[in-house]
């Protein structure tokens, strides 16, 4: 951009002052700021990653920010989703996001899409924007966003988080790889826990989301070395940043052979017939409700009750009579379980216990999952057990 001397000034006085630190920054300057203002960026998700991305892109002056989210603000979001406040609990996230962004920078046009991104609407919604920022929290939507970005030729600024670790990259940009080049298939259901099950350090999405915002601005400005062809791995406990190479896969069905010519059913692709909002992946397995469990406990029936959560979760609250065996220790504990008795398993929401029931069933046990876990136990049986 240096050397361009004939840039027309069409920013208002207020904007010139607001963006003054950009305007004096080599490689941004007036032309760069104008590019930022003319950019149209779509944020998929206004959650942990979408929050810092939205705030920094709005502050930087991105002219149009689209936001796709169908969720409402929950108290448990506020530990990391800094776009929303306590007074927003219960409101649609897109409404609270729009209010916060407009307050931060009234020059930004916020386009809200209160819908779940699907194969039916993805091309239409993504097609209206220059750059897509993937801040979703589930595999089906990640593959959907990837395939739609490849088809449309839009850069996909990727970020993902789990517990203390994050990943970031830029997919589908120029000759670079796409998400499928890195991860051809999603994990089988139940093999990789979500943040709702495994937890996440509240500041982590702040770190990864600001990296996504940085990459987005670099793409808009055409400066620097983006993460195209590289995957950034962030380990907050070791505080290490590590980069690995991600080549484009010539056999990738999305961006290589281009076999994928239309968007498919991504929940089926990810083996999730119950959909992304399903509480567990316990299809076909023996299940009881917390109320039924309470009746069987009251009747003093013979069975072994196992809690497969972690010790710190057990301390928050547990069902009397249960034995604590964290999921990772189930295999080692098989020999200590009475094979003549039914084993009933619970966790927080029913997902980890479904995983444990599968392991127990494979080992020959008569195992039953408690649907909805201790959260539903708190609703149906014992409200004194805190939810978390």
């Amino acid at each position, binding site marked *: 951009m240096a050397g361009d001397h004939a840039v027309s000034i069409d920013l208002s006085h207020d904007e010139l002052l607001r963006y003054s630190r950009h305007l004096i920054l080599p490689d941004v300057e007036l032309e760069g700021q104008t590019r930022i203002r003319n950019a149209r960026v779509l944020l998929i998700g206004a959650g942990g990653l979408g929050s810092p991305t939205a705030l920094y892109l709005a502050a930087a002056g991105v002219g149009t920010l689209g936001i796709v989210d169908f969720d409402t603000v929950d108290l448990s979001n506020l530990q990391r989703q800094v776009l929303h406040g306590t007074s927003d609990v219960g409101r649609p996230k897109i409404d609270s996001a729009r209010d916060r962004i407009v307050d931060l920078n009234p020059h930004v046009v916020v386009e809200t899409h209160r819908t779940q991104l699907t194969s039916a609407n993805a091309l239409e919604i993504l097609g209206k924007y220059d750059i897509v920022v993937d801040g979703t929290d589930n595999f089906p939507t990640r593959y959907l966003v990837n395939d739609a970005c490849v088809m449309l030729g839009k850069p996909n600024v990727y970020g993902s988080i*789990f517990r203390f670790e994050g990943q970031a990259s830029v997919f589908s940009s120029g000759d670079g790889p796409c998400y499928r080049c890195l991860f051809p298939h999603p994990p089988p259901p139940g093999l990789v826990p979500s943040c709702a099950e495994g937890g996440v350090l509240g500041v982590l999405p702040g770190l990864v989301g600001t990296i996504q915002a940085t990459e987005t601005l670099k793409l808009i400005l055409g400066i620097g070395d983006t993460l195209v062809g590289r995957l950034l791995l962030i380990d907050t406990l070791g505080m290490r940043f590590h980069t690995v190479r991600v080549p484009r896969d010539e056999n990738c069905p999305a961006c290589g052979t281009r076999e994928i010519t239309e968007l498919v059913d991504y929940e089926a692709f990810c083996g999730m017939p119950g959909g992304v909002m399903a509480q567990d992946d316990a299809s076909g397995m023996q299940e009881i409700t917390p109320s039924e469990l309470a009746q069987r406990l009251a009747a003093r029936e013979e069975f072994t009750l196992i809690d497969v959560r972690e010790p710190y979760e057990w301390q928050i609250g547990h069902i009397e009579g249960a034995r604590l065996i964290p999921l990772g220790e189930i295999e080692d504990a098989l020999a200590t379980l009475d094979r003549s008795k039914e084993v009933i398993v619970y966790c927080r929401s029913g997902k980890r216990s479904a995983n444990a029931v599968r392991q127990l069933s494979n080992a020959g046990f008569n195992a039953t999952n408690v649907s909805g876990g201790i959260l539903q136990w708190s609703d149906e049986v014992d409200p004194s057990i805190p939810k978390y």
Partner: protein
Amino acid sequence: MAVSIVLPRALLTYSRGSSTLDLDVHCATVADALDELGRRWPAVLDRVLTEQGDVREHVNIFVGEESIRFASGLATPVKDGDTIMIVAAVSGG
């Protein structure tokens, strides 16, 4: 120390909380190193390889910065001092 294996946090449940395995035996290939990993923590290896012994498609294994999928797969050679990094897909946002 011959080769180190770094695990993703999602698998620490199955490695008794250890994030790194330093192997003190000689390994010629990634497969040799994973054999040792499986001896130490079989449940970790179950989540890295399929029952057929292939690398799961939501998992990437890197030797240094390079993915073994674009090298010689599990036969990719390793040398003393190499770090093998296992990276699994995560979906949190």
